[in-house]
């Protein structure tokens, strides 16, 4: 998506690059020191120091890398179906992708946020945003599975999300595309944007115990594009800062028409006040429709609930709730330093980086030091809010992270570099090239109160000429830098899945020991579980056939099923009886129009199968499980509709018929 936004920028960048080609390192060799390999080498059998959660962008998924090795540990399916894992195909996971529009099998996951306690990463959950059909997901870091997906009403393009407050009180979802509210007739001319379109910011509460998300309230804001955001922390806890572009309120050719104002805004929201107003009953109930999808670990099953109401607060009606801070020019990143005092706005079309001071903002508010208002919201004077500007940082500043030692690191999309600067005196200290066109960057804990300033990873949009060519479509990349010294040092460069946007990382110890190894079969509350082979059975209910099947190394029970008829819907409820780590079993059957299943030890998962023809259908375990894995298979016999073949099922007892039984009649010869 960024490529489209930045075509114009890239053109001018190319002109600059051509003009300054001498500045660009000729190859990686010129940028990498000889000790880089030893710094990223994690010996076989050894663990990485950090878990790194990386958004998959248009893949819709979340990838997990180890740092410093850059090894891909896992891809967690979130918003997109994943036939490999049966995600969105098994009966249990289908409800996770339900929305008010129906089942949406894809989304665009841009940003990740690890849950925090007291402004430090606590390793419980990681949140991700769905940009296209606005949603927020919560991934449980004991199972590394998506535990919840919540849809957002009154929203379009959930980009300014899922940023959190410092105790994970709220996850934020700010709409990038303002739209008419869901409860009014949206059949209006597009060019009535100024009149009819609204921006909303959802405050999603997170249950402290189980993580369950609910929309606590929505702020109704002027129709602009909310781009990114970060919560205040420490002294600024209680405030939230949102970058806004398209304050021109253009509805067409935004590339030009939303780039006219010299300054757009960072909107500062006093969310503690909003919370207070909601407590006082000031929230207005609005009829909407949105899905709340939760996965229950005991039944191994997701439930989708359609909700019909949200509480809204119109920020215009409550003075003190929000203030606009002018920010040059079309700000993208909106990042708060570890102390909570400094707010960095990255105007992607600006040739400088403004840094605002929380104390100065508070003083300006107290003194009503305003230059006017924007749609009834007071606009604080730029100079009154400003700590200072980083001069000539590079071209196309996008995002900033912090090392906890007083330094900030900003990604420069157009000039393809990471720039290190001092927060105190705003001096540029160092710059390193990226290959090429860096978008987000991240330092472990780099947006929290306690960054771990050892490494920085830059996520690049363009990799042309970096890897062996793979046709027209190339991977995006991540580049790892050592930032422990005065000079940043490029260590490693590796391809990523999808398109990485924001990422976060945390010391492995915070998560590692909490990892679930298998599900206890005793605690399995799935309605179709078979706890042991004695409980396996096949039950016909009209044209629905439920197969209670177990898997253990290395057989299916039952593995011979007869009496299935054309017109039947067959549900294979597979329980993996293993109770040890890393012993999943798979399940697949010929002609299934959905996917396979991967069933974890102690879990029950269901594949629906509608046989389309008469015959014998093999089924088998897809996940190599033992020396006798190839034997782990069975057959289903499908007879014509109305056939009297009795429903029978067994394992190990259906012995060969005398003389091989009746010969098959060849139906092709007449």
């Amino acid at each position, binding site marked *: 998506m960024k490529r489209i936004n930045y075509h114009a920028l890239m053109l001018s960048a190319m002109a600059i690059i051509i003009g300054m080609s001498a500045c660009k390192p000729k190859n990686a060799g010129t940028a990498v020191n000889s000790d880089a390999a030893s710094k990223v080498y994690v010996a076989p059998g050894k663990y990485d120091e950090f878990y790194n959660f990386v958004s998959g962008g248009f893949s819709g998924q979340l990838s997990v890398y180890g740092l410093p090795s850059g090894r891909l540990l896992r891809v967690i399916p979130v918003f997109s179906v994943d036939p490999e894992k049966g995600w969105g195909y098994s009966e249990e996971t289908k409800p996770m992708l339900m929305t008010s529009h129906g089942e949406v099998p894809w989304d665009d996951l841009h940003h990740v946020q690890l849950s925090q306690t007291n402004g430090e990463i606590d390793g419980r959950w990681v949140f991700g945003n769905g940009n296209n059909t606005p949603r927020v997901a919560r991934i449980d870091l004991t199972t590394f599975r998506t535990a919840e997906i919540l849809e957002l009403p009154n929203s379009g393009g959930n980009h300014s999300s899922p940023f959190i407050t410092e105790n994970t009180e709220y996850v934020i979802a700010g709409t990038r595309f303002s739209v008419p509210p869901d409860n009014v007739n949206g059949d209006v001319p597009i060019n009535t944007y100024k009149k009819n379109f609204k921006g909303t910011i959802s405050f999603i509460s997170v249950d402290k115990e189980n993580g369950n998300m609910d929309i606590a309230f929505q702020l109704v804001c002027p129709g602009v594009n909310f781009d990114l955001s970060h919560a205040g922390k420490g002294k600024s806890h209680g405030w939230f800062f949102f970058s806004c572009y398209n304050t021109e309120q253009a509805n067409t050719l935004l590339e030009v028409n939303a780039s006219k104002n010299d300054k757009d805004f960072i909107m500062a929201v006093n969310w503690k006040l909003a919370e207070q107003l909601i407590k006082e009953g000031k929230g207005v109930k609005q009829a909407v429709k949105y899905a709340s999808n939760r996965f229950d670990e005991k039944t191994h099953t997701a439930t989708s609930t359609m909700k019909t109401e949200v509480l809204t607060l119109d920020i215009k009606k409550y003075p003190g709730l929000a203030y606009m801070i002018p920010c040059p020019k079309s700000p993208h990143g909106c990042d708060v330093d570890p102390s909570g005092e400094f707010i960095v706005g990255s105007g992607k079309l600006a040739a400088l980086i403004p840094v605002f001071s929380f104390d100065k903002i508070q003083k300006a508010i107290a003194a009503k030091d305003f230059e006017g208002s924007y749609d009834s919201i007071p606009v604080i004077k730029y100079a009154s809010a400003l700590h200072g500007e980083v001069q000539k940082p590079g071209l196309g500043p996008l995002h900033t992270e912090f090392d906890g030692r007083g330094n900030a690191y900003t990604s420069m999309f157009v000039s393809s570099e990471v720039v290190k600067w001092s927060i105190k005196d705003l001096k540029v200290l160092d710059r390193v090239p990226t290959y090429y066109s860096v978008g987000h960057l991240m330092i472990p804990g780099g947006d929290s109160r306690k960054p771990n300033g050892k490494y920085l990873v830059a996520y690049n949009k363009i990799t042309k000429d970096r890897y062996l060519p793979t046709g027209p479509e190339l991977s995006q990349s991540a580049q790892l830098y050592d930032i422990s010294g005065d000079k940043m040092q490029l260590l490693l460069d590796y391809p990523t899945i999808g398109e990485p946007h924001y990422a976060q990382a945390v010391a492995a110890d915070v998560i590692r020991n909490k990892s679930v190894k*298998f599900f*206890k*079969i*005793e605690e399995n509350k799935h309605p179709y579980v078979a*706890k*042991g*082979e*004695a409980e396996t059975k096949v039950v016909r209910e009209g044209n629905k056939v439920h197969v209670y099947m*177990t898997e*253990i*190394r*290395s*057989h299916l*029970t039952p593995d011979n099923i007869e009496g299935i008829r054309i017109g039947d819907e067959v549900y294979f409820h597979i329980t993996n*009886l*293993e*109770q*040890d*780590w*890393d*012993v*999943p079993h798979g399940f697949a059957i010929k002609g299934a129009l959905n996917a396979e299943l991967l069933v974890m030890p102690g879990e029950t998962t269901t594949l629906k199968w509608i046989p389309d023809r008469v015959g014998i259908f093999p089924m088998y375990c897809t*996940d*190599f*499980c*033992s*020396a*006798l*894995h190839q034997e782990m298979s069975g057959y289903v016999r499908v007879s014509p509709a109305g056939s009297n073949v009795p429903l029978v099922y067994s394992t*190990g007892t259906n012995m060969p018929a005398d003389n091989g039984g009746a010969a098959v009649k060849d139906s092709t010869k007449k």
Partner: protein
Amino acid sequence: MKKFAAILSLVFFIAACGGGNTENNAEKAKETSTESAITESGNPSYDPNRGEGKFKDVEVSPNLDVKLADAGEKVYSVKCSGCHKLSDEKLVGPGWAGVTLRHKPEWIMNFVTNTDEMIDKDPKVQAQLEICLVRMPNQGLTDQDARDVYEFMRKNDGVK
């Protein structure tokens, strides 16, 4: 890991073909275990009668404890019956008939709770692996589960 397990099974198989005969190993282990000498598995203190694990002295009364045996049957049905018959017939693993006559209670209870280590160290288990070619999974039995299952095995072997 799955592949690793399979490869490991093969390794045991190959090791047996190429080198020592496991019966001899078992004999050796028996002879030397009391003297803490180094066995074939490289473990100086491995006791092939007791196995390795937390169970050292399991008290077993001459008569069957029906309560324990009933609880053990339930565990068997969920976690064991997929692979072990109650007769002497092999399914995935060996049938259970006579198992309490072949092994001490400590050995059985250690094996079902400390499975991986025993597979790696115990000569008799390694000999079984050559026959079955499937590493017995650790089925996550609690200490009490292990005791219950042992009592159920005794019942299966005719203890009244």
